[in-house]
């Protein structure tokens, strides 16, 4: 009897619990991350589109940075999945370069992470040539170069220096070491096109390979490591989500990926490139957000990031500045700390904050970083503003019999107000500028179009973020000039 009533009760609760859980799943979209280069964006957009088609709520955190940030985010469950390369997984994440796919899968499972099978293409280093020139000379593979010592090689400096770059390659293939020039990656493509060089290094899925009608020479001695694209995902994801990711396996060869990358750069839109994967006619007007709406979203987020961090910096910076104005060991410590924070490159600071559980890939991290950067001008100006108050004035306030707190409130702080406001103004303008970096960790703001534009090499998109950011900085500057009139006592402005 007890058993049946128990089972009956479970039978009642079960559907409710399931409904509740699916309700939760609806509320929390599956977060897809991507690294900050075109191909990663496009792959993430494809996964997003594929999941959305099956009705799974999904969101794409664009261009979150490099391998370390994404791996951290995946490990700490801040994102559900992101596209990665087998070579990177073996070398950088698992630090076991010789691992087979199965060994990699086993090791990843210990982190609660799964790996799809290969998506189909290999994005590794390659040597490329113009298609017509290669055909004419009968060159198909890298070993064919041995018979053409007259060919001019234009190689990037990185490739010339890398441990898995030119030198060991030339050794393995016994290639002649003459006729080599070091040249920038972008310029190298131009040089290849106009015939100033014949061969250059590239990534095997570079959009330019399709655009400029180049071919990647076959790596017939298997010198280059394999960088086959896969999706890494959290193992606890619902089976239907994993199934969708796995449906992408084997669906993208080099040529297709090159085409999609080229489409993304041509159309200036990752979403439309992803549409091509599904062979859908893209209708940007209906599915893409209007520009004014996007601009509003970026600007609102930008102001939120800069504003919240500025308020925090004021709330913490002024008391710290007051403490620092008293000099001594504590004063030096405070000024030393806030100055040291300022010297950390902003990217490094973001990378340092991301692994901390409370922060992670979120606006919180951007706000924390901006807050730390905003401290120095406020702390320093508060301290010097207070220290600059002449001794007779200071002593008059003491001699009147004002208690220390009242002296500060009624005399010292108002007298230092011009300097303090100057510091706050500097922080505000710096924050508006620096907040564009928040996009690096997917926190949004006006950095989003700047970052996309940089990756797409599209100046118009960059300007969509850069111009509003510059205007914001000017507006902030002006509104603080107005605020000066309201907040600085008139006696100090005469």
């Amino acid at each position, binding site marked *: 009897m007890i058993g049946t009533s128990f089972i009956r009760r479970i039978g009642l609760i079960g559907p409710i619990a399931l409904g509740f859980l699916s309700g939760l799943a609806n509320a929390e979209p599956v977060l897809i991350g991507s690294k900050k280069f075109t191909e990663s964006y496009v792959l993430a957009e494809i996964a997003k589109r594929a999941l959305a088609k099956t009705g799974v709520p999904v969101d794409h955190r664009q261009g979150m940075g490099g391998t370390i940030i994404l791996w951290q985010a995946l490990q700490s469950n801040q994102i559900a999945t992101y596209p990665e390369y087998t070579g990177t997984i073996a070398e950088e994440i698992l630090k076991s370069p010789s691992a087979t796919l199965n060994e990699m899968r086993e090791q990843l499972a210990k982190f609660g992470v799964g790996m799809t099978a290969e998506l189909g293409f290999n994005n590794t280093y390659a040597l490329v040539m113009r298609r017509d020139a290669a055909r004419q000379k009968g060159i198909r593979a890298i070993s064919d170069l041995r018979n053409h010592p007259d060919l001019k090689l234009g190689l990037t400096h990185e490739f010339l220096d890398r441990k898995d770059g030119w030198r060991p390659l030339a050794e393995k293939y016994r290639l002649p070491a003459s006729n080599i020039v070091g040249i920038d990656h972008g310029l190298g493509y131009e040089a290849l096109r106009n015939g100033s060089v014949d061969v250059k290094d590239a990534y095997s899925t570079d959009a330019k390979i399709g655009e400029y009608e180049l071919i990647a020479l076959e790596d017939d001695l298997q010198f280059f490591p394999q960088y086959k694209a896969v999706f890494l995902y959290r193992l606890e994801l619902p089976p239907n989500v994993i199934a969708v990711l796995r449906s992408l396996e084997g669906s993208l060869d080099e040529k297709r990926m090159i085409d999609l990358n080229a489409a993304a750069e041509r159309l200036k839109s990752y979403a439309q490139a992803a549409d091509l994967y599904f062979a859908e006619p893209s209708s940007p007007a209906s599915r893409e957000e209007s520009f004014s709406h996007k601009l509003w979203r970026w600007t609102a987020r930008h102001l939120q990031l800069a504003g919240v961090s500025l308020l925090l910096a004021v709330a913490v910076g002024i008391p710290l500045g007051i403490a620092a104005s008293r000099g001594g060991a504590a004063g030096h410590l405070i000024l030393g700390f806030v100055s040291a924070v300022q010297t950390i490159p902003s990217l490094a600071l973001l990378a340092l904050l991301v692994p901390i559980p409370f922060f992670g890939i979120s606006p919180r991290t951007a706000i924390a970083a901006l807050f730390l950067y905003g401290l120095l001008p406020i702390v320093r100006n508060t301290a010097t503003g207070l220290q600059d108050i002449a001794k007779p004035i200071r*002593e008059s306030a003491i001699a009147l019999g004002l208690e220390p707190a009242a002296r500060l409130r*009624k*005399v010292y702080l108002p007298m230092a107000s011009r300097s303090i406001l100057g510091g706050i103004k500097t922080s505000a303008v710096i924050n508006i500028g620096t907040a564009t970096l928040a996009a690096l960790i997917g926190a949004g703001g006006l950095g989003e179009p700047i970052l996309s534009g940089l990756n797409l090499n599209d100046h118009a998109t960059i300007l969509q973020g850069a111009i509003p950011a510059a205007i914001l900085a000017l507006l902030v500057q002006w509104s603080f000039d107005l605020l000066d009139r309201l907040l600085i006592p008139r006696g100090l402005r005469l």
Partner: protein
Amino acid sequence: MESLVQLSGVSKTYGSSIALHPTDLDFARGKTTVLIGPSGCGKSTLLRLVIRLLDPDGGTISFDGTPVTLANISDLRRRIGYVIQDGGLFPHLTARKNVLLMAAHLKWPAGKMQSRLSELCALTRFPESALDRFPVELSGGQRQRISLMRALMLSPQLLLLDEPLGALDPLVRAALQKDLKEIFQRLNQTAILVTHDLAEAAYLGDEIVLMNEGRVVQRGTLSDLRARPANAFVGDFITAQRSVTLS
């Protein structure tokens, strides 16, 4: 009658230099005592010790029978007015707010503040119409009058003046000397005035304390000092200030 301020064995050094040797000194109620001497003789140091802008290295200072300590200093300071050379006015406040700052802090009723302010304007001959000017908009003499009003606002038992007229031109200075003398007399004010001008000391002081190199050299009226100089320094100091010897 017991004196208002008593110093016993009070000393002060800055690093290795002695600003004030152990000194015993008392200041009588209702009198104006002038501290005079060459620069660095310790006269300003002594004044600043009384209002505790400096902590003495040794000895005790009593005010109205109470030893001055860190615990009671805020209260005692409110019973002492302090005027310095450049006025020490707060530049962000109008003349009116400078004068009323402490009264407002102590939450005096508005009517009481206003009537006291009018009283002080009359006493110091400051035009009420100029009360809403900021310190930078006032002349040097007006600034010192405001500084004096601020010091007198709470009707202090003791007024400390550290070269209050030092930065003023001779005519303004003469006018203020005259007004100060009247004010001290009308209020029966206990005052300690620091100056290096013997004429001012003779004009304003009931008694002169001549200091040199951190010590009190002689105390008395100008005629005492002139008639019976304690040592050669006293004679030299008086002779050096020709204007006085001529008058």
